[in-house]
């Protein structure tokens, strides 16, 4: 009984060990004298790998323990049974915004410059996750190349400011919104008329094609990307640091995006989106113009991503083809899924967690080193392996995603109803 439960794991581990054996436990040493390569059995090599992986095991254990504890004491069920907080953020949405806005905007006053920078990046990811959530979470259309629109916005800004004598970010951002939306509309037009997940493939193709195109265009800077003019970027003035400026603009954009999405969500449009996700045929036969509503959702997603792209470019002063790598798209998708499909606040939470946790993990070793108390408490070897943890973040994302799908398919803030749907598609 107990054995049969562990058998798949044991078999998997054995299979993995067999497959990775040559890479982990053998070492290839070039023998220059004889002009050959010698293969040597190297336990140190293999043990080093497991040593490196230690933090991954630790995190995996913590997640496992969390899942068990949740099952034991029913935390997530309690959270759902107590629906008061869910209703609160639906009904009183505008009231709490007046409290959070000043709090968020005053961030730079009590944060360090690097902390402000981190939160700015997190804010940009939050805008992206919020935008993608409209299509993937609310309307139920899978998009695999969302970063393509992000890069489109950034490159639109970078290329235009090179051609024009003066084209700073505050001129580009409002223009990126309709332009990004237009690109989304044109891309969605052919594939949203069809049923099925064509949009996922088409957007994936768009992002890859966009990347390859700008890599090979001389005027777009190729692989090197484009460095922006100073006057196009965020600049400090009257004693305000440029990083602060950037933070404030990102925060305001985020608030604007939340406002836009939430107002739509609690309107006939939002209800139509959800109805399409729930049952497309039924939605059409109660009078929802399915194609138009899907196009609206997708264009809006694209428009929001394009604005985020402009802000990102104006912050870094640099754009490159790496902005629309597949990994970026998947990262934003993972944020939406982690936070809870269809829930805007879930998307914000997912983005915050998936961006900030690895960044803080990166900072953790130096924090430990700087504080004498922590340095005494944490052995040096653990500190060093924490250093490597952020290298394994993709591995961790994968593990977290699989666990989420098994344990909480509706995402952290998703509703209970989502679960039943995911389990019985």
């Amino acid at each position, binding site marked *: 009984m107990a054995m049969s439960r562990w058998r798949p794991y044991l078999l998997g581990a054995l299979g993995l060990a067999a497959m990775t054996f040559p890479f982990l436990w053998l070492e290839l040493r070039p023998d220059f004298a004889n002009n050959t390569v010698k293969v040597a059995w190297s336990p140190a090599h293999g043990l080093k790998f497991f040593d490196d992986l230690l933090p991954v095991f630790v995190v995996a254990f913590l997640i496992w323990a969390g899942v068990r504890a949740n099952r034991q004491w029913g935390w997530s069920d309690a959270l759902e049974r107590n629906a008061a907080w869910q209703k609160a953020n639906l009904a009183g949405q505008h009231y709490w915004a007046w409290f959070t806005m000043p709090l968020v905007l005053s961030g730079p006053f009590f944060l360090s410059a690097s902390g402000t920078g981190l939160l700015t990046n997190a804010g940009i990811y939050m805008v992206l996750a919020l935008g993608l959530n409209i299509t993937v979470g609310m309307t139920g259309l899978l998009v695999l190349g969302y970063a393509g629109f992000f890069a489109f916005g950034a490159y639109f800004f970078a290329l235009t400011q090179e051609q024009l004598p003066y084209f700073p970010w505050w001129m580009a951002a409002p223009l990126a919104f309709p332009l990004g939306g237009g690109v989304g509309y044109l891309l969605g037009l052919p594939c949203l008329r069809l049923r099925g997940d064509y949009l996922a493939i088409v957007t994936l193709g768009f992002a890859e094609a966009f990347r390859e195109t700008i890599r090979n265009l001389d005027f777009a800077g190729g692989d090197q990307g484009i460095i922006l003019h100073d006057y196009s970027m965020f600049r400090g003035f009257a004693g305000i640091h440029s990083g602060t400026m950037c933070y404030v603009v990102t925060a305001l954009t985020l608030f604007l995006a939340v406002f836009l999405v939430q107002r739509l969500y609690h309107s006939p449009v939002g*209800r139509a989106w959800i*109805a399409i996700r729930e049952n497309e045929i039924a939605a*059409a*036969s*109660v*009078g929802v*113009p399915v194609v138009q509503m899907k196009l609206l959702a997708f264009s809006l997603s694209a428009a929001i991503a394009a604005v985020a792209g402009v802000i990102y470019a104006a912050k870094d002063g640099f754009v490159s083809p790496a902005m629309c790598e597949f990994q970026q798209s998947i990262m934003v998708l993972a944020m939406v899924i982690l936070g809870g499909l269809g829930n805007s606040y879930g998307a914000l939470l997912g983005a915050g967690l998936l961006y900030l946790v690895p960044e803080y993990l990166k900072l953790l070793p130096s924090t430990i080193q700087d504080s004498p108390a922590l340095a005494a408490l944490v052995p040096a070897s653990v500190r060093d392996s924490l250093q490597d943890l952020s290298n394994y973040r993709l591995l961790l994302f994968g593990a977290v995603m699989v666990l989420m799908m098994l344990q909480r398919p509706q995402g952290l803030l998703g509703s209970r109803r989502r679960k039943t749907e995911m389990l019985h598609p």
Partner: protein
Amino acid sequence: MTPLLETRGLSKTFGGLKAVQKVDLHIGANRIVSVIGPNGAGKTTFFNCLSGIYRPDGGAILLDGQDITGRAPHQVCKLGLARTFQNIRLFPEMSVLENVLVAQFQHRSISPLPLLLRSKRFRAQEKQSRDEALGFLEFVGLAHLAEEMSGSLAYGLQRRLEIARALATQPRLLLLDEPAAGMNPQETTEMVQLISRLRDRGLAILLIEHHMKVVMTISDEILVLDHGVSIAHGAPEKVRNDPQVIKAYLGDEVPTGE
């Protein structure tokens, strides 16, 4: 006088299968017409053609004299034809009330500025929608469950919710696809009452149903389909005694060998 709905030689083929062949039908305002026939006779395909889910291969559909052949479902709905589904198609993750609210989409203005700014008029419209939706729920007897998740409703109540949702599109003709399927005698009686109350509201109803008792009590006319072909059409009494209908349901007489 033009009939509310008219089909002229409506046909639909899937590959080699002639699901619906040259069906002619007239439905007058405020009439209840039932479509019956053995399983696979093409009843649901006929409904899907009418409501725009399938595009018919031949023939024409006229709603109030206007040609709606090949129109998209939401356009057909806008012209006053609503339907329910045999396999219930609710929006399970939405509340009972929201299911009905979705169906008011076409009667709502979605111009962006008032929507984003929540203008006074927009809020008034939202309230009106809500009140109307509650009215429809009241009509089918679900008002006390308005805040429940529709996916968690009992089966019979889900069927009622589908009817309330269809009513919210403000149709003139309602297509009901097996509304009493899987119901116990008590629920079936209630459904019959609901359907006659729908007629009292001034709706015309086209009904697919297998319960013969239901069909015979409430229908004004009956259309019998067999293998996609209309084999009989007329008053219940006439159809009941039609030899062709009996043959379709019970099979041929066993030939007595010579």
